[in-house]
């Protein structure tokens, strides 16, 4: 059975999974930090304290986190079609992947920012720092280990999402396991894809832990 596997196909599927995860991860990192910052800054003791804005952002984040990923993909079909020009292939999976995981990561960013010592933010204010300086030179660097651990957790969830997206035509290991494995009763192939996905998850976890430890000078 395994002899029938075309290794080029397997390599391509692995590459697609990596590609989708990495690009989606970059998008999630940026969008999630923006969301997390907005949540933190507009909150009760935030610099931009704003009850209604906080409520709106919080509601949007909660709604998108509540939608099951597979349904989110369907819901986003028109948007994806408009943005990418197709609803098939790895690129078509990106909008759903980013929109699906950024709210989750945004909450993790918010938690990370809350952990930053209020006294340090106050010290920066007492030195005459602008809000921009406080964000880029205090809040983000001081919460960086938490932001990295958070993105590691998100990356692993994203690998799972790519497999789900794969099942409806995005390519990658999930798609390969479904169409070439499950549909053809080739369970060895399904197993092989699983092992590859687990290895990918381990790689992300290892890199994330390493960076977080290196950055943490506390």
């Amino acid at each position, binding site marked *: 059975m395994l002899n029938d596997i075309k290794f080029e196909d397997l390599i391509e599927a692995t590459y697609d999974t990596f590609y989708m995860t990495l690009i989606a991860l970059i998008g999630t990192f940026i969008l999630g930090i923006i969301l997390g910052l907005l949540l933190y800054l507009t909150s009760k003791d935030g610099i931009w304290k704003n009850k209604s804005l906080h409520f709106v952002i919080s509601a949007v984040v909660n709604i998108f986190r509540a939608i099951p990923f597979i349904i989110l993909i369907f819901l986003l079909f028109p948007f994806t079609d408009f943005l990418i020009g197709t609803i098939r292939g790895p690129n078509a999976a990106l909008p759903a992947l980013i929109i699906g995981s950024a709210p989750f990561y945004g909450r993790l960013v918010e938690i990370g920012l809350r952990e930053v010592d209020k*006294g*340090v933010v106050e010290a920066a204010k007492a*030195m*005459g720092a602008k809000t921009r300086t406080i964000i880029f*030179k205090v809040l983000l660097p*001081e919460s960086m280990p938490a932001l990295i651990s958070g993105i590691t957790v998100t990356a692993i969830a994203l690998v799972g999402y790519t497999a789900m997206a794969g099942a409806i035509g995005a390519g990658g290991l999930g798609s390969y396991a479904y169409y070439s494995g499950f549909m053809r009763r080739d369970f060895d192939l399904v197993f092989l894809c699983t092992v590859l996905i687990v290895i990918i998850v381990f790689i992300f976890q290892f890199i994330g832990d390493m960076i977080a430890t290196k950055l943490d*000078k*506390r």
Partner: protein
Amino acid sequence: MISIEGLSKVFTSNKSKTTAVENLDLNINDGDIFGVIGYSGAGKSTFVRLLNRLEEPSGGRITINNEDITAMTARQLRIARQDIGMIFQHFNLLWSRTVEDNIAFPLEIAGVTKTDRQKRVQELIDLVGLSGKEKAYPSQLSGGQKQRVGIARALANNPKVLLCDEATSALDPETTNSILDLLVDINKQFGLTIILITHEMHVIRKICNHVAVMESGKVVEQGEVMDVFLHPRQHVTKKFVEQVMGNGEEDEDIAGIAEAYSEGNLVRLHFVGETTNQALISKLAKKYDVDINILQGKITQTQAGAYGTLIVQIAGKDIEEAVRYIKEKSSVEMEVIQDVK
């Protein structure tokens, strides 16, 4: 010159109002080390945070060097804050930055160029005595060293005023003293005005020249440190003076002492800001034929000189002359407890 008029701060939460600072007036001269002392909840911490508007005042006016802090826009305030250094009880350093990068932070905010920053940081590290620790992270430093970084950071932009919010409260007594010495040094070297918040009278005694005592959001007593030590009027102030001087329980023992030392005169000497008469006792012994026996007392040093009380026994031939000398030639106040003759 810092002048504060009618300053007040009311915290509102869940429809209940708490007045932290109430209608406070103070004037602080340039180059002063001005201490504000009070128990927790007296409003002293809120007071110091009002000075650079970390807390927004509910009313009143603050003028620092003829600039009205309270009337400033957010933008003006940011610039003004670069001239007001501040140090904190918990140091508030950025753990993600090294010592030198922490000290460079206010310079980055002020837009100083990189080469000038490096030069200034090195000066400051030498000033606070942290040479060799440039590349260390705050987590690798002791409490005293962290506060030195805090001080260097606060001084980076050459401020005219330094606010100290319980700056030594998290330190052990020995480290507290070394940090206080550093503050006096800086005050003398740069003529910096220091406003210091504390609950320890020891800190006031050691470095301040003016003191204000706060209770329930108000200044209940203020003046020169020596005057306040000598004539504390309010109950709180007396309590604080006792922290340093003991609580006067020794007076009850005087009868006992008088019984035990029945020979000669028993006198109480009050040293009040002495700088010239500290060798009084040895002078008396050399000049007159008397023996002086120190029975009880405590002398402590303040910025204005020695302060405290001694109970001594004077015996020998020239008792009268010695007593007259103390009365007429020295500025030490004397009180005769027992005259056996």
